[in-house]
């Protein structure tokens, strides 16, 4: 009996601690959302009443709309390029064993760990030399570099669980390597490719340090404008921008979870 109540106490403590920490993780993000429709010039509680004027202000200010467009264009295009480069490299690394493979992989993944400030100032100086500072291609290249390692990782993980006898079976049934790749390999690694795209997209959509150092004023992105606004004039328009960005995050997370569940089902049924 004594042991049972100790167990129960233990469990309640665990649940309470978990609930508190989860609240700490999520409440700050959710608390900003209502302020985007709050009828007050200040970002403070209690709420005063409903208004849509912060969204109207957001969508009628070219500074914000241009930033939104820049973020979208950069995220989609850099994630697409990063996914292609990362997928090809993951296939190449899975094809052959060679000396120094682990080192090569670590180098290809290094954009994930090198502090972004070092990358940012390095870009400012190096791209300055080659004429890519304050250009769209320069910004795009930086975003691809930050996103490609994610595609390499996710496709690599998908290939690691790939059953190679399937390829032999396809060849035995008369499929050419190209056909075997398209009809067998590609469908099986597709979730990894899509996951890589989502990570690369989120990385680009979130990126702000590189933008601070090498972007021209007309190439500023949404996080970049938020950074300036938070430093200069904190207005509820920021809450509107934050809400839009949180929505994008929720969609990305939802897609990712759907993908994971689908992959798990496929693995279980296989």
């Amino acid at each position, binding site marked *: 009996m004594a042991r049972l109540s100790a167990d129960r106490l233990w469990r309640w403590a665990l649940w309470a601690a978990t609930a508190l920490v989860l609240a700490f993780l*999520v409440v700050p993000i959710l608390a*900003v959302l209502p302020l985007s429709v709050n009828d007050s010039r200040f*970002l403070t509680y209690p709420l005063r009443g409903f208004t849509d004027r912060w969204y109207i202000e957001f969508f009628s200010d070219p500074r914000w709309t241009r930033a939104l467009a820049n973020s979208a264009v950069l995220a989609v295009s850099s994630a697409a390029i990063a996914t292609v480069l990362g997928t090809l490299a993951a296939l190449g690394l899975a*094809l052959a064993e*060679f000396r120094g493979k682990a080192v090569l992989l670590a180098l290809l993944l290094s954009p994930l*760990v090198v502090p972004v400030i070092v990358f940012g100032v390095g870009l400012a100086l190096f791209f300055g030399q080659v004429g890519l500072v304050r250009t769209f291609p320069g910004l795009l290249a930086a975003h691809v570099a930050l996103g490609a390692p994610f595609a390499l990782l996710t496709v690599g993980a998908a290939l690691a669980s790939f059953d190679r006898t399937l390829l032999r079976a396809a060849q035995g049934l008369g499929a050419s390597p190209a056909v075997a790749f398209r009809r067998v390999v590609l469908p099986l690694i597709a979730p990894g490719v899509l996951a890589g795209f989502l990570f690369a997209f989120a990385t680009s959509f979130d990126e702000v340090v590189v933008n601070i150092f090498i972007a021209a004023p007309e190439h500023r992105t949404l*996080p970049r404008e938020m950074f300036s606004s938070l430093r200069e004039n*904190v207005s509820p328009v920021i809450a509107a921008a934050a809400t839009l960005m*949180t929505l994008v*995050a929720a969609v990305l997370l939802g897609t990712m979870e759907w993908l994971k569940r689908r992959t798990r089902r496929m693995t279980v049924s296989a």
Partner: protein
Amino acid sequence: MSAPAASLDAVRPPVRTIGRDGRRRLLAAGLVAPLAAFLLFAFAAPIIWILGYGVADNELASVWPRVSAELRDGGDELPPDEAVFAALAADLRGSQASRTAATAARRLNYALPGGRSLVTQTARALADRQEPDPGGGWRETLIALDPAWGERETWVALRQASGPVSAFFLLSAADLRLGADGLERAPPEQRIYLAVLWRTFAVAATVTAAAIVLGFPVAYFLANGPPALASVAMVLVLLPLWTSLLVRTGAWVVLLQDQGLVNGALMALGLTSEPVRLLFNRTGLTIAMVHISLPYLILPLYATMTTIRPELVKAARSLGASPAVAFWRVYLPQTLPGLAAGALLVFILSLGYYITPALVGGAGDQLVSYFIAFYTTETFNWGMAGALAILLVAATAILYVFYARLAGPRGLSLG
């Protein structure tokens, strides 16, 4: 059917494997090459470029080529002989004529207090003189203009700056410099970098410790709680990870301000009668950084916890261990690889924070990243920026090697 095929295989394997293997390797190289080449240009080159500035030291040599060459090739005796003084005089005149004396003045001033005025005044005084003072050489002439030219300290600084590489900026990053008698501590007013590095480590350590305390129960719940609730909890852990860093940091700016929710709650609970200052100081910075770092601790720890077999704890309990003992002696040790991996990841990421300290930290809470940015864009002291970048990248790389060992090849994947 299968027998002939098998015997054919037995006859041909060497030839076939080599041929196929060669083609396969070529294909593999061709597939990896685009990404490798791209990253070499768009990632490695910029990094190497800025790190190179940390050891390159050719500012002085670019404007004072003659005296720099003499000092690089010359003997150990400092101050040097007349030939080197003559080269210095020629360079001083030359740089005054081409208006580059300020570059030399700036570089010398990094290493020598008063170096700037020494160079600019001497250069001005020498501007229209072709010959040294009658009855003496350039040595006597320069020392007459400013006795500092006769001091060993001046020449140690000059020789160290003569390029093409030097440890000057790296030493400066450790508050050290090369004085007349070897290594010495920088003058008190220039001792700022060790404090910045220490602050960066202290903040990272605090954030890591807080993340361990807060993250452990959540990871345990994710691994051992009721599956339906645990999957909801997982979404709540992942949502902040997918949300923009700017949104998360901005949220804390809003919540921690004097009229923010946190102060409102504190006052409503009667814990304080007037707003507590939570923004633009270490408290706010730590809270925001812990919030941003938590998922990186929770996920590797959770991954390790899912591999721990619950029977082991049950066995310990049935053998008479109390819950606390079973947890401490049986469960906790098995979580250590994941805990260490998560803690290292949080620590590594914390070393590189730039945006969050800029927005929620005060002037005294800026980490090493801030100074790298400051020297690059504000004072154009790229050598100092490069030296601090070398230290930051080196610390990150060393910790990353440990992390990769602990977390395995897939340790970097998230979610």
